[in-house]
């Protein structure tokens, strides 16, 4: 069911990873993603994967829970794999009609798929081990220096909070509307591309109207609860750098060094 998508979900816990400052986790995740594109050989991926599984181990989030998030994007991974497999020129390994698999293609496809899997799991660890509110608070604080040049850091963070909150609600709403129109005989699966695009109208219009209604209700509810911008707001859980964050920083630097070294193996 739609509400079982784990991407962007939080897994409550008290592990050392959970307790890290959200800023540390955001920076670490960003660096991890950049690293994935620096890696260019087998050993680099081994190091990255090992580091990632070590973090998962420490976080005590069940593996099954993490992999459930992957099933939602499984098709994208397969698609990327196939595109790379057949589209790269080089030493031919296999040939049939217009389809050709090359050594380079196989290698690139494999790396790309592994990269995607690591990227998705890596970033889902961030959201699984960080409360949404800490995540957005962390983001707000990281962006704070930019507010001097006019970046609305508080507003961006609030938008993220609301987006994370309402993704499941809107998914359920979409599910309901699709089913309701199906019950009225709507057909979303057959016809050419124009007909299919047209068949989306009975879903999109009610969904838009729903979103506006939610926005209106929510704005009123926030006003009633005295929301008046970021000035003068306090936080129940202020985020602070602690000893754990220093340790995490050191580990992160070592990891970076290992990844860069792997390019020369």
């Amino acid at each position: 069911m739609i509400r079982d998508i784990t991407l962007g979900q939080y897994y409550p816990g008290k592990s050392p990873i959970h307790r890290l400052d959200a800023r540390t986790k955001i920076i670490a995740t960003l660096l991890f993603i950049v690293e994935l594109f620096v890696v260019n050989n087998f050993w680099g991926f081994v190091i990255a994967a090992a580091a990632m599984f070590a973090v998962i181990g420490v976080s005590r989030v069940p593996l099954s829970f993490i992999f459930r998030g992957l099933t939602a994007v499984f098709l994208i991974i397969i698609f990327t794999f196939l595109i790379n497999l057949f589209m790269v020129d080089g030493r031919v390994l296999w040939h049939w009609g217009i389809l050709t698999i090359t050594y380079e293609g196989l290698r690139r496809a494999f790396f790309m798929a592994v990269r995607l899997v690591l990227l998705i799991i890596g970033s889902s660890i961030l959201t699984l081990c960080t409360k949404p509110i800490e995540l957005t608070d962390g983001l707000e604080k990281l962006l704070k220096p930019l507010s001097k040049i006019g970046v609305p850091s508080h507003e961006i963070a609030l938008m993220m909070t609301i987006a994370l909150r309402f993704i499941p609600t809107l998914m359920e709403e979409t599910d309901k509307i699709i089913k309701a129109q199906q019950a009225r005989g709507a057909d979303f699966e057959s016809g050419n591309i124009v007909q299919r695009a047209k068949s989306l109208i009975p879903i999109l219009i009610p969904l838009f109207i729903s979103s506006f209604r939610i926005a209106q209700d929510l704005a009123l509810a926030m006003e009633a609860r005295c929301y008046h911008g970021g000035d003068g707001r306090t936080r129940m859980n202020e985020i602070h750098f602690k000893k754990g964050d220093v340790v995490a920083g050191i580990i992160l630097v070592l990891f970076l060094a290992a990844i860069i070294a792997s390019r020369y193996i």
Partner: protein
Amino acid sequence: MSFISVRNLIVDFKRVDEDGKEVLATRAIDGVSLDIEKGSFVAVVGMNGSGKSTLAKCLNGLIVPTSGEVVVDGMNTTDESKIWDVRKRIAMVFQNPDNQIVSSIVEDDVAFGPENLGVDPDEIRKRVDEALQRVDMYDCKDKGAHMLSGGQKQRIAIAGAVAMRPECIVFDEPTAMLDPRGRQQVLEIIRDLNANGITAVLITHYMEEAMQADRIIVMKDGKIFSDSTPNELFSNVELIESAGLEMPTRLALKNAKPGRSISVENVKTGTVLEKNVPVRNGLKVQNLRYVYNSGMPGETVAIDDMSFDIAEGSICGVIGHTGSGKSTMLQHLNGLLKPNEGEVYVGETCITDGKTKLVDIRRKVGLVFQYPEYQLFEETVAKDVAFGPKNLGITGDELDETVKKSIEIVGLNYDKIKDASPFELSGGMKRRVAIAGVIAMKPKILILDEPTAGLDPRAHREVLKMVRNIHEEMGITIIFVSHNMRDIAEMSDKVLVINKGKLMMEGTPREVFARKDELESVGLTVPEVRTIMAELKDKYPQINENILTLDEAVKELEKHNIKL
């Protein structure tokens, strides 16, 4: 001076006309004056569109009066420098549980209000924990808001208000979207808060809830129609009728004079049907089983070995909690979901064997979802109603004829309404249009999921009348879900009780509601009049307690010469 004082309040809603000028659209509040004392419990009732919600939003300055004034604890709501002080004193809980929760995690959402007020972190922590304990949701503090039931979400919303330490909480139809269990819990919390000194203003359509207040204000056409104690209000039958309200069952029974019919029950002061119709072309469900995420880590059995049948041309009521599996079950009846095991037969046709085309299933079984007005999308009513039949391949004159007839069956005037935009209609009318859109597909079986949800008492009665009308005019089988046990008792030939994915009971309303204790043990209810008769039985053992309508109750009491 009283805590809240409203003087000559007028609120106009303006809209921009074609020339770009502002014109008066509606006068939502038309000269209201009232005082609310600290610590009181005030209920506000009235039809949809009578101005209740607008009045509520004026109390904490969410709506600024067009003229007149609202003064809270000496502060005028039009004074912008004081507006946050006003809202700190008067918190608000809204109707839709989903749309008022800001943060994904329960405790973070409860903290939202105090954070906005700039309260110290340690103090916020304390208030959040206290507020969550108050609404009995402390164990869920780390949960994701989207994992909670409607009733739980509403309790979180109340905790969010309580954490701001307000002196008054305005509840704007907080129970309208909840099932009976959720409704009862929310009401208990409101009473408990009031007992602890918080002034409560409760807007509601349920007279049983309003009766618990010290004072009931009746709104009609933007004016205060009546303002009295519950006892005074409910002794005035004419006033209740003209305000579009209904009499609480308990009082209706008390006030009923022997020999005089009870006038408040307009739908049908009915005999409960007890005929046994043979199953011919009805619906047959056999050993239905459905599992979400089959074979995956989070697999849950939503429907477990369910078998029942529904006779052709009968009306079948379905009851059960939100999340009991009843909606999932209904979606199997027109092929939206495919069972893991078991079969569904419509007449002779098995619709689950994979051979029947989906279009043919939908021609046979129409499904109207909860709040169907949210699926409207066309420019005009006629076009929207035509969407279903067009999908089935009906065209030309036949299509026009079908659309016209369907709109008339749901009780609307075709010529007046056909070219109107569905979005400009009132809530009750939108719902009728949406239902017309399904019956235009001429189903043999019509399924309605909570067709009366969120309506005021008068619109509620009208929708029930419409359902009867569809049943009689089209001669079709009707299956309807309701949380209102009186509707179930009065409308159904047969009742299905669903609990935790299983069929817990089936039978005539009289058979089902005879098992009052069993129903109550799983948190379901019986018609109010049945409860009252059970209570009376303790005092008068000679009476029959299995009574389902007011008329029956009056007769039974007369028979034994009992006066209340």
